[in-house]
């Protein structure tokens, strides 16, 4: 199963960083996301885009995971050579992650 079936995501940009906020469609799946979508898996999955470290924050009140990906924007919005200089499409690249438990 792809992460896309269980969760939604929005990407934001700041400098050369991309933030990926991940939320289950159903709150009951938050624990599953917490287990499955680890920092390591995100880093591996997005390895061709994200060159720096990935930090994960957990916000149980909101049933949210926040991934802060460093060196993700080819230097930053204005000097990036990528077609999507803001890295906005990274949100749905993350949702293509295949879950192992399901």
């Amino acid at each position, binding site marked *: 199963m792809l992460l896309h079936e269980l969760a939604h995501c929005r990407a934001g940009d700041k400098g050369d960083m991309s933030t990926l*906020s991940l939320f289950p469609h159903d709150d009951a799946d938050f624990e599953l996301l917490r287990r499955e979508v680890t920092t390591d898996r995100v880093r591996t999955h997005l390895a061709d885009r994200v060159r720096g470290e990935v930090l994960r924050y957990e916000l149980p009140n*909101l049933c949210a995971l926040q991934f802060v990906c460093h060196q993700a924007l080819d230097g930053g919005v204005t000097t990036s050579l990528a*077609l999507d200089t803001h890295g906005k499409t990274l949100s749905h690249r993350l949702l293509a992650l295949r879950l192992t438990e399901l």
Partner: protein
Amino acid sequence: MTRIGSGAGFAGDRIEPAVALAEHAGLDDLVLECLAERTIALGQQRRLADPGLGYDPRLRARFERLLPVAARRGVRVLTNMGAANPLAAGEVTRELLREHRLPGRVAVVTGDDVLAELDLAAPAWEDGIALGEHGEVVSANAYLGADALLPALTTGASVVLTGRVADPSLFLAPLADRLGWDLADPDQTAAGTLVGHLLECAGQVTGGYFADPGVKDVPGLADLGFPFADVSPDGAAELGKLDGTGGVVSRATVREQLLYEVTDPTGYRTPDVVLDFREVTATEAGRDRVRIAGARGRSRPDELKVSVGYRAGHRAEAEISYAGPNAARRARLAAEVVTERLGGTGLRVRAEVLGQLGDSPSATAECRLRVAALAPDGERADLVCHEVESLYTNGPAGGGGVRTSVRDVIGIVSTSISRDLVRPRVTVLEADDAAA
């Protein structure tokens, strides 16, 4: 209780939903946030070319539509459309008020331009390299806070124009003004900052940038309405949108916007407060109504963030299409050829084939080679475009549709500056004076 609306979330935003909000939502304040990280540096470029420019190019178009409605409905308008030249934006606004025979007072907040105070030897946050070594610095703008806006509000202005101000501060200031909040109270300031953060991207909290057909459907996306917040003196807030407009306000849309561009949810720094999201809750309180509570704050930082713009060279971009059987392999061969021909230029070249279609011999297969490079001079930028263009008769078979462009690039890096070095000012322009 006060009601504040969001009429623009970026410089390219639509105008109609803002007019509808001003007309029908019973707003006290309408905020238009139009400055992205790099926008002000582009404004500085325009101002260097013409000292009368540098403010938002759509200022007149937005205000032509909005100011008559806002004046009729008694809605105060705040915006950072002053960009790199708030005083010129103020004069344009005063002229517009006069043309439409509207009463009003325009307050202009300046002082964010700190180029003269900038230490070019200081390292940039992003890469640790001295600011001055990135290239010729063309702009340095400090993110002003709500404290810089409050004096403009106490003048009784109906329109407030700023340059660089932290986005949530544009909302926090009128909330503090209406609700009698003390900016030194971290929890009140955090509550107002949270509301500002949720509203600052306008339609992004009412279902814009959210729809994923079959997974997350948004009704009436073509007629997307913009959001407002009803904020209580205790800091609790309800987000909503105008009845009859398209879009949706739900826990899901609110959560996506809540963490948007937040690089540390335990300490989101603005000039006004350090906001902690960990206790924040978002609960649906009715149709298109979401209640927000639980923002916690710590004292504001001693230093202000500064966004520095520098000349970063010229970006060349060139593309060519290949179609039909074996299209992807021909496109990849073209990429290799161009990369090899540009090998001696010393440029970082990115060549990619768009449209990942494998090698199936389909008649409808189509892909496009894109070549991009950042060149320190125009000559080498032109060379990148020339090499793609020359694929017509010097590359693989069947390429077509070459498009090339070269554009100046303003790079952006960040640093910080002591508050003592930043001196916000308010200039009041009377529409009536202009008429006299």
